[in-house]
């Protein structure tokens, strides 16, 4: 080789010069390698580009035909993370993950492996042999903690890698490992942040579970994922999984049970295994069949500061999860824990909100009903107040009319007139009863009856005839349940209600239409909410529907209010028709629903609770002899003179010896002096003691004193107490001669009983049944 300027040196000097040059070349070459590689590693670039530059540089610097970087700890795969010299079709093929393979051995031993005659070595990756590789070196890539992968350099010429080459490669591999670690750490952090945002915005539990296992493989660098949580009883349950079937759930629950009991895991240390099959035995877990899991990483999931579950990522290869991945996994698990708390809070909020809305709705409905009831109550109170005075007046009219009819001297014409007075008085009394029904203060004479019987009676009544004749274009249809069950009800009130409904229906079909009357048995297995809230139970339903003008939606909630009507006053009677219907239904413990559409008609359905008791036979005509007196003494106590006079007259007629007083106090004084066989006590006497107080006082003086109660109001609690205390019957005003007579006779005919207790309201006086006559 000629030197600069072409001077020739002596042969020995030339040889020495050559040797020096060669040494310099070697030194520069080695420096070059390090310098070039460090320069590439220090340039900020995305990981993929950086690795490509590094491997190209290595290929050039070491005359390597193939340079491949395997990073199983990071990527979880044995296919090259980056490669130069591998044909495109080989890039995604895994280099051998077998433990005996050069890759795994280099990672396990953390020592480079150098081979010649590679084409004949079966331990070498088949890809390398296929490409005609002659010599190769596997250098472990070690990060800051452990071997994470292998750098493979291979030559297709039989030029071995020198020891200095291998040393240099080891140094370079370490630098590559650090750079890889740093880059992948940034990438993982980025993924964690994204994953955290996603899970924290999920407010549905199932969606959270699904998203967690969906994201976990990317974060862990895993092939699949599993999410296990403790259920309400503390047992482990697999709540979500990815890339593994439910037939392996037993494996995860067993693992979870073991880990939950492990103090390290409970102390928030992750569990990692590079070959789970080996560990499974030590954990006393018995997998059956070919286990699809090799490397495994499980991290605890905390709730309320305690381990309540685990997240596991697994790989089908033995590529272990590195320490960095463990840290990232713990971070992710913490995010998932926080997200679960969010979901729980959100659910609680939702439930509370729903409850509040439900309560609000219920409150509104109750308020509506209360308002209606209060309105009705107020109206009823007003009506009741009127009714009380009216009843007394009517009582006189009806009573004395009746008496007059007994007089033999009356001419027929006069009798007829008196009879009409009586009828009118009775009719007025009926209206008063309506008012009292409205006021919910009317006790009905309840009997076990069949609604169909009542309806048939009504359909044959003169009132119904009158409705039909007044509305000739209305067609009446009936559809009555043949096996209709019985109810406990007042026949008069049912009749009244039915006729009111029929009248309303007919009047709604001014131009004609169809009036349908139906009955049926109805079992409600859940409450029905409508105009009224109908509870579940057995009912007899009476339905009256028409095809008339219908009720506007705005009027529907008012139709049962007294005097609320759109009809012309006069045709609808008093305007209390539907109010009476409503009151009747309520008195019978029933419900009423209305459906209507303007222009198409209306349908009323009355629900009456069923009774399983049998009907009693109709009570027949009772002769006067059954209630004629035998000279017994009766004391009438009533603050109203006319009532006193009436009662006295009627009872005298019935051959009793009658005295009367105006107040309870007088009655007490009277019985102190004179014993009466029976007291006829008015309940409400104002001012002073009422009927109950009077009776109790009398009982102190005359234990066992017989009495009946009379009143113009429905049975009240005080009447009930009086009856419980020993009073024989309650007779409602206005009463007829026979009703009063029967009650008196019946009581007088009872044997005398000695009171077991003088305490007011003692129920042991009662036979358990109260007799009362309306």
């Amino acid at each position, binding site marked *: *080789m*000629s*030197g*600069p*300027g072409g001077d020739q040196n002596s042969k020995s000097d030339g040889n020495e010069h050559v040797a020096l*040059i*060669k040494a*310099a*070349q070697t*030194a*520069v*070459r080695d*420096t*070059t390698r*390090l*310098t*070039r*590689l*460090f*320069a590439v590693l220090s340039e900020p670039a995305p990981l993929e580009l950086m690795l490509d530059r590094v491997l*190209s*540089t290595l*290929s*050039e*610097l*070491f*005359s*390597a*035909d*193939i340079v491949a970087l395997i990073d199983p700890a990071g990527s979880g795969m044995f296919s090259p993370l980056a490669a*130069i*010299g*591998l*044909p*495109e079709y*080989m890039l995604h093929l895994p280099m051998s993950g077998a433990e005996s393979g050069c890759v795994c051995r280099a990672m396990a031993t953390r020592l480079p492996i150098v081979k010649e005659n590679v084409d004949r070595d079966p331990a070498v990756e088949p890809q390398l042999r296929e*490409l*005609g590789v002659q010599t190769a070196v596997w250098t472990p890539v070690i990060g800051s903690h452990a071997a994470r992968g292998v750098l493979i350099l291979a*030559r*297709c*010429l039989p*030029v071995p890698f020198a020891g200095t080459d291998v040393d240099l490669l080891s140094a370079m591999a370490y630098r590559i490992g650090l750079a890889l670690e740093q880059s992948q750490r940034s990438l993982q952090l980025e993924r964690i942040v994204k994953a955290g945002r996603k899970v924290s915005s999920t407010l549905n539990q199932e969606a959270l579970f699904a998203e967690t296992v969906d994201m976990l493989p990317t974060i862990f660098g895993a092939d699949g994922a599993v999410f296990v949580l403790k259920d309400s009883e503390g047992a482990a349950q697999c709540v979500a999984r990815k890339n593994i079937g439910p037939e392996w759930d037993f494996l995860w629950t067993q693992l979870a049970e073991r880990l939950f009991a492990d103090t390290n895991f409970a102390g928030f240390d992750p569990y990692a295994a590079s070959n789970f099959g080996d560990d499974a035995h030590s954990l006393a877990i018995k997998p059956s069949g070919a286990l699809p899991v090799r490397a495994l990483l499980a991290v605890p999931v905390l709730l309320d500061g305690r381990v309540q579950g685990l997240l596991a990522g697994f790989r089908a290869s033995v590529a272990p999860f590195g320490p960095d991945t463990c840290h990232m996994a713990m971070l992710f698990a913490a995010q998932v824990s926080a997200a679960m708390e969010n979901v729980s809070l959100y659910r609680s909020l939702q439930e509370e909100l729903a409850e509040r809305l439900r309560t609000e709705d219920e409150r509104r409905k109750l308020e509506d009903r209360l308002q209606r009831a209060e309105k009705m109550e107020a109206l009823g109170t007003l009506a009741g107040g009127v009714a009380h005075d009216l009843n007394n007046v009517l009582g006189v009219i009806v009573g004395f009319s009746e008496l007059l009819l007994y007089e033999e001297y009356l001419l027929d014409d006069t009798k007829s007139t008196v009879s009409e007075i009586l009828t009118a008085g009775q009719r007025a009394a009926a209206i008063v009863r309506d008012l009292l029904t409205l006021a919910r203060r009317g006790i009905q004479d309840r009997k076990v009856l069949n609604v169909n019987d009542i309806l048939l009676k009504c359909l044959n009544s003169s009132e119904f005839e009158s409705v039909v004749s007044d509305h000739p274009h209305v067609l009446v249809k009936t559809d009555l349940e043949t096996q209709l069950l019985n109810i406990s009800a007042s026949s008069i009130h049912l009749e009244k209600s039915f006729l009111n409904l029929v009248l309303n229906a007919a009047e709604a079909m001014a131009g004609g239409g169809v009036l349908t009357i139906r009955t049926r048995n109805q079992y409600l297995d859940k409450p029905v909410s409508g105009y009224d809230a109908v509870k579940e139970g057995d009912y007899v339903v009476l339905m009256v529907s028409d095809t008339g003008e219908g009720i506007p939606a705005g009027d529907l909630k008012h139709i049962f209010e007294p005097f609320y009507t759109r009809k012309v006053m006069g045709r609808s009677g008093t305007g209390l028709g539907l109010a009476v219907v409503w009151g009747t239904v309520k008195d019978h413990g029933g419900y009423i629903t209305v459906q209507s559409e303007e222009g198409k008609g209306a349908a009323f359905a009355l629900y009456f609770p069923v009774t399983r008791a049998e009907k009693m036979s109709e009570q027949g005509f009772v002769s006067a002899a059954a209630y004629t007196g035998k000279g017994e003494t009766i004391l009438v106590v009533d603050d109203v003179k006319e009532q006193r006079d009436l009662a006295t007259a009627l009872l005298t007629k019935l051959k009793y010896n009658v005295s009367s007083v105006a107040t309870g106090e007088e009655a007490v004084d009277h019985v102190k002096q004179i014993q009466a066989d029976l007291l006829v006590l008015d309940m409400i006497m104002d001012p002073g003691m009422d009927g109950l107080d009077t009776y109790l006082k009398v009982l102190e003086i005359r234990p066992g004193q017989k009495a009946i109660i009379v009143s113009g109001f429905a049975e009240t609690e005080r009447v009930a107490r009086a009856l419980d205390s020993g009073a024989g019957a309650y007779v409602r005003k206005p009463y007829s001669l026979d009703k009063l007579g029967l009650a008196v006779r019946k009581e007088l005919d009872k044997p005398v009983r000695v009171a077991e207790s003088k305490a007011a309201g003692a129920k042991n006086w009662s036979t358990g049944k109260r007799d009362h006559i309306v």
Partner: protein
Amino acid sequence: METISRLKLAAKARSCKVGDRDRERAGMKKEVDGSCRKVRAGTGMSTAPEAARAGREAARAALAVLCEEPPALVMVFTTPRYNLAELLAGIRSVTGSAILIGATGSGQIVMGSLMGFGEGVGVLALTAGEYRFGIASAANICGDLDRAGQEIARASLAAAGPTPYAAVMLLADCLAGDLQELVKGIYRITGPKVPLVGGAAGDELKFLKTFVFHNDTVIENGAVALWIGSGKPLRVITRHGFEPIGIPMLVTRVEGTEIIEIGGRPAALAYEEQLGLTPGELSSERFWDTSILHPLGILQHDGASVIRVARAKTGDGRLKINGCVPPAGSGVQVMSGNADTLLDILEEVAGAALGVDSDAAALLVFSCAARKVIFGDRASEEARRLQAAAGQIPVFGLYCCGEFARSVGVSGAHNATLTALAL
């Protein structure tokens, strides 16, 4: 007259008389039916001033040698002075739909003759024989050479189909950028078993516009790859003829296509020092005459050097490099050579290339325009000596502005180098 004599000379090399045509055809047919399908190669050239005519003449001459066997591959190396589209049309009017690959350059080698600047066009026609050819090209490759290399390698492989062995011939625009990236892109697809040969198209050292050809398409700022699928191994031979002088040095700073510092000192300074010159002694005007004989050699692992020619120096001591600049951290040594040393490698190259395949039909060579400059008046000697070494096998080549030759590892871009492949 001169044109016709050249045609006759070309035809003579592989003559096929009319009277012998039937016999020849029968012989060819026998060879085709036999287990060994022999490749036939014919070359032609034309200096006709008009492009289409030049194309037709050169193509006819090349085909004449094939004894009416249709060509499977046509190579075209030409001066850039022609209307290239017309040139290709003229050629294709004779060669038909055979695959056509080619480039403009800084001279052509055709059957021992050198076609200098502006002279004309050379055409090589090959029958398929055992080879399978696939061609692909990419335009606008500047800026994403790696991806372009992958694309053309992938597409040309797909066109040729799989074979036990293969090689890739690459022609690319020398002005497109760092062509080593193009080589790397191709390497990603080929892997180490497929050697690479070729050159960067030139424009007779004007460095303005260069072109490559894909069938009837003329491509600027592009690359074209020919996948040569073979049933036997193919080998690329590379030599340059320079020897290292001075001491190895470290490139410490580079920028773009300029070496800024060598060994921590201004690159030009370090360079001149190695030549025994005082700093600044080498003027910018004289620089090229010196640097062409004393290029830089990038030290390789096996002791060889990859040549990089500095074509100029700047006022602040930077060296402008032709082609791929050595990366910072590279070890370099100043090389030295002359016409003799550069020509002395020819027989070795031809012999080594043809030694791989005793049945080779043609010897493809890619030499560097810088070598031609160094040869000076002896420029035609390279063509002549190569042909002499090849014997009856036609030598066909191009003077490029950068050569491609990848045999080991990913490196494959060279300067001032001769590379050869026998087909």
